[in-house]
């Protein structure tokens, strides 16, 4: 089975800052890949490069056998690459349903408004926002808006879903719910790349984890391999804590 998404030597420079530094990454169909790293490591920038918000300064991105680097965002999204935003980006003055209808109409395969509405309601139901479909997006709670983001992505009927910190700001009950939801999505055959701060989430969800630091990839492997990687621990906790944390991690 060929890889669905392949990045080769992708870099993105902003003025003097190398936000993404020569990253190679390949994601197979149906995989759940975790993308972790300290704040400012370049994770979100990498997502932006993949989805066409930024053009890569160097390197190539291949999706489903086609080069997509340099393509416009809306084209990439129509090809089945969906993402959620770290800071939620709803259309604030629209209802939840209208919010989800947008991707269903423009990026999904829906024919006509009625069908888009149906798709949207399905997606809202799927993420558990069925009852809130008539509320304005700006009036939802943070957790609600995160789910709305997810519903929007799902309504695009994506092949690849990039989840940028979907769990940030949620409490542990909500996180558990979200994890179930993500597994459900993955089970339906969608490839998932998840950016996450919470180790617990990544460890329990992902088959493979990629660690970014200062824009570059410093480690890649199974959750266990990554968790025991010294450079990862150092990057995350600073070397003061590296030894302690590493010790505890290997115990657990």
């Amino acid at each position, binding site marked *: 089975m060929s890889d669905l998404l392949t990045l080769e030597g992708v870099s993105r420079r902003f003025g003097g800052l190398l936000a993404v530094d020569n990253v190679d990454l390949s994601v197979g169909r149906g995989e759940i890949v975790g993308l972790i790293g*300290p*704040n*400012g490591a370049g994770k979100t920038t990498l997502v932006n490069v993949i989805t066409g918000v930024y053009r890569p300064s160097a390197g190539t991105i291949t999706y489903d056998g086609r080069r997509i680097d340099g393509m416009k965002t809306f084209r990439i999204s129509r090809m089945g690459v969906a993402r959620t935003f770290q800071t939620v980006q709803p259309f604030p003055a629209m209802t939840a349903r209208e919010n989800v209808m947008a991707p269903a109409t423009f990026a999904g395969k829906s024919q006509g408004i009625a069908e888009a509405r149906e798709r949207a309601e399905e997606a809202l139901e799927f993420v558990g926002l069925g009852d809130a479909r008539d509320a304005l997006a*700006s*009036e939802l*709670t*943070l957790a609600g808006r995160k789910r709305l983001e997810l519903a929007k992505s799902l309504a695009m009927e994506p092949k690849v879903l990039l989840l940028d*910190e979907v769990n*940030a*700001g*949620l*409490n*542990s009950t909500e996180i558990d719910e979200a994890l179930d939801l993500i597994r459900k999505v993955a089970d339906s055959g969608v490839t998932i790349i998840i950016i996450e*701060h*919470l*180790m*617990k989430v990544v*460890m329990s969800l992902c088959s493979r984890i990629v660690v970014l630091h*200062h824009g570059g990839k410093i480690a890649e492997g199974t959750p266990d391999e990554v968790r025991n990687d010294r450079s990862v621990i*150092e*990057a995350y*906790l*600073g*070397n*003061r*804590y590296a030894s302690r*944390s590493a010790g*505890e*991690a290997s115990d*657990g």
Partner: protein
Amino acid sequence: MAEPLMQIQGLESGYGEIQVLWGIDLEVHEQELVSLIGSNGAGKTTLLKTISGLVPPTNGSVLIDGEEYAGRRPDQMLTAGVAQVPEGRRLFRTMSVRDNLLMGAYMRPQNDPGIREDYERVMAMFPRLAERARQDAGTLSGGEQQMCAIGRGIMGRPRLLMIDELSLGLAPRAVEMLIESLLELNRAGVAILLVEQDVATALDLAHRAYVVDRGRIAMSGTARELADAPEVREAYMGI
């Protein structure tokens, strides 16, 4: 125990129709170093902004030396001795480092000789800033920017310095340097209220700490107590 420097009771606030804080109780004593931990979006930043007067509270009280300050303007908070170093540094990018620092002393009389003194003090604390005093703040590296931001906070000669996300996006070495400076500052008598995502660091530094969850204080105690609490370890340290 003496009267706390800052005592917060039942503080509530939010943005428009969305309420973020739901009754926060918290106190900081003179010369104390207190950490606030909690996940993204838990309301830590909103709490600091509400204290410093950027976000108007809808309920509750903020007492400084026993006097009510809830709902005051930021300049009044500064006069009371409470300064905030905002998340993301928020330097004035095309002003020089020196001018940024001087902005920190905006509230003080312009001929106050203490300004010069404090400036020298900041420069001594962060020698890297001294080398770059004439440079635009926007050209500094992340760590240097954070130094400048903290220095700017110090220039107001606060009794309580609130720092939002000290380590955000910084290299570990830079964070360590900043921590040393903070501890030094704290030893010199400035109380610090630190918001930090890196829970290990936050708990390692602080005397006491609070865990904020969905706009409420979920736990509080000495740093050691919290560091050993299994809930904290599981939820926030991921180990």
